């Protein structure tokens, strides 16, 4: 018991002292009934107070748990864990430089989709998509930074750090799983009456960013800022339907595990030089190949095994030799 607690419970200590005195008085053969009665009354008061305090404490704990459950739904699980365990100082200007892998995605032509839908249908549609994608983010241990309408921003490497390679790999694998899940969801949406399949664009970049609390003392946002964040977003803008484009730095970390295309140089807004990016094919390159269909031809092409230049060379050769493609 601290000094403060001893002082706070001085009434209880007095009561204890009185009980001892009473016991001593009884040993001397003197039994003061009125004193006993006062003692009993005091104990009854204490019991009533204890019962109120217990009820109050239980109620506070229940309320706290309810708040924690609500908080859990507003922030990413890794950040929730840090806040509730007291590891995260919820203060402004507490940022640090860390190397992260950053993911951006958005739905191709979402504005067009949303124009054709009623408000309620749109929110059901969007929420079912975000729900599925968020489950995948959590499965791979990503930190969900934010939803921006139909866009999703995720990063790997903070608050939980493993290694740059692991962050990049988990990030790309998450994107791959999102892509395959989306294909499964086409069926579900079709059954619900959405005829046009939904496609997403995905972009990933790796690099040093500032991570921490940004905003004002009234309203904080645990987020990241820095050039790789913009790069991930710009690369994502350039991605085609269901395409995953990754920055050259990310590619260097995953290339031994995940097949990717040759570098594609892109002129991106806000970047002075053309930035190299790579398209992710699939983790198991033998199983998944890009399929192009046009004018009765069916072409299977694996960018991991054949560069674009080699493909054109091969096609020209076959066309000239009159070989069926």
């Amino acid at each position, binding site marked *: 018991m*601290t000094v*403060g607690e001893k*002082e*706070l*419970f001085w*009434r209880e200590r007095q009561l204890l002292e009185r009980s001892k005195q009473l016991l001593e008085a009884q040993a001397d053969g003197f039994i003061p009934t009125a004193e006993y009665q006062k003692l009993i009354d005091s104990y009854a008061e204490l019991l009533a*107070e204890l019962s*109120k*305090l217990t009820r*109050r*404490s239980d*109620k506070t704990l229940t*309320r706290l748990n309810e708040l924690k459950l609500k908080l859990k739904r507003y922030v990413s699980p890794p950040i929730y864990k840090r806040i509730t365990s007291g590891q995260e100082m919820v203060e402004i200007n507490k940022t640090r430089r860390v190397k992260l892998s950053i993911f951006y995605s958005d739905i191709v032509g979402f504005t067009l989709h949303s124009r054709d839908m009623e408000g309620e249908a749109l929110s059901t549609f969007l929420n079912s998509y975000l729900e599925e994608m968020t489950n995948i983010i959590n499965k791979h241990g990503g930190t969900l930074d934010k939803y921006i309408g139909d866009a999703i921003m995720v990063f790997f490497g903070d608050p939980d750090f493993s290694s740059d390679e692991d962050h990049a790999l988990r990030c790309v694998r998450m994107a791959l799983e999102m892509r395959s899940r989306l294909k499964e969801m086409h069926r579900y949406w079709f059954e619900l009456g959405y005829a046009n399949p939904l496609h997403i664009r995905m972009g990933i970049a790796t690099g040093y960013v500032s991570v921490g609390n940004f905003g004002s003392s009234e309203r904080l946002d645990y987020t990241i800022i820095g050039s790789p964040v913009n790069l991930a977003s710009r690369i994502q803008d350039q991605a085609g339907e269901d395409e995953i484009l990754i920055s050259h730095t990310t590619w260097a970390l995953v290339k031994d595990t995940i097949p990717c295309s040759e570098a594609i140089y892109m002129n991106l807004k806000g970047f002075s030089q053309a930035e190299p990016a790579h398209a992710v094919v699939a983790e198991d390159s033998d199983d998944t190949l890009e399929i192009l269909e046009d004018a009765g031809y069916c072409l299977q092409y694996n960018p991991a095994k054949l560069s674009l230049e080699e493909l054109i060379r091969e096609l020209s050769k076959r066309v000239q030799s009159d070989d069926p493609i």
Partner: protein
Amino acid sequence: MEKMRISASKYTPEIIYDPATYTLSIEGESWPENAFDIYMPLLEKLEAYFRKPGQSLKVDVMLDLMNTSSRIMYRELINLLQRAHDEGHSVEMKWFYQAGDEDMQEDWEELMEDCSLPYHIVEREE
């Protein structure tokens, strides 16, 4: 008797006790580590005040948050004021809680249970 004024802090309320106007006003949040240190000087002043016969005091308490230690000290304040009332002093209490804050309303109601001194529990609009 001297006026007592303790400014509010992040964890403690503003306390203004003025015997000249027969008022005690407490406003803010109360979740100090040691509530005894905050409230005991006030209780001692009030004890001294009620030693003179025929005193009167109007008490307004407006708290948005109260920890268990503070609650114990408010229990003491109520006991003191109840005794003063029983001895013939004029004591009136008003407990304010923010609109919709059922927890605080319930806290005040529980604290005032079995008290015969005049009091009001008032819902405060924003």
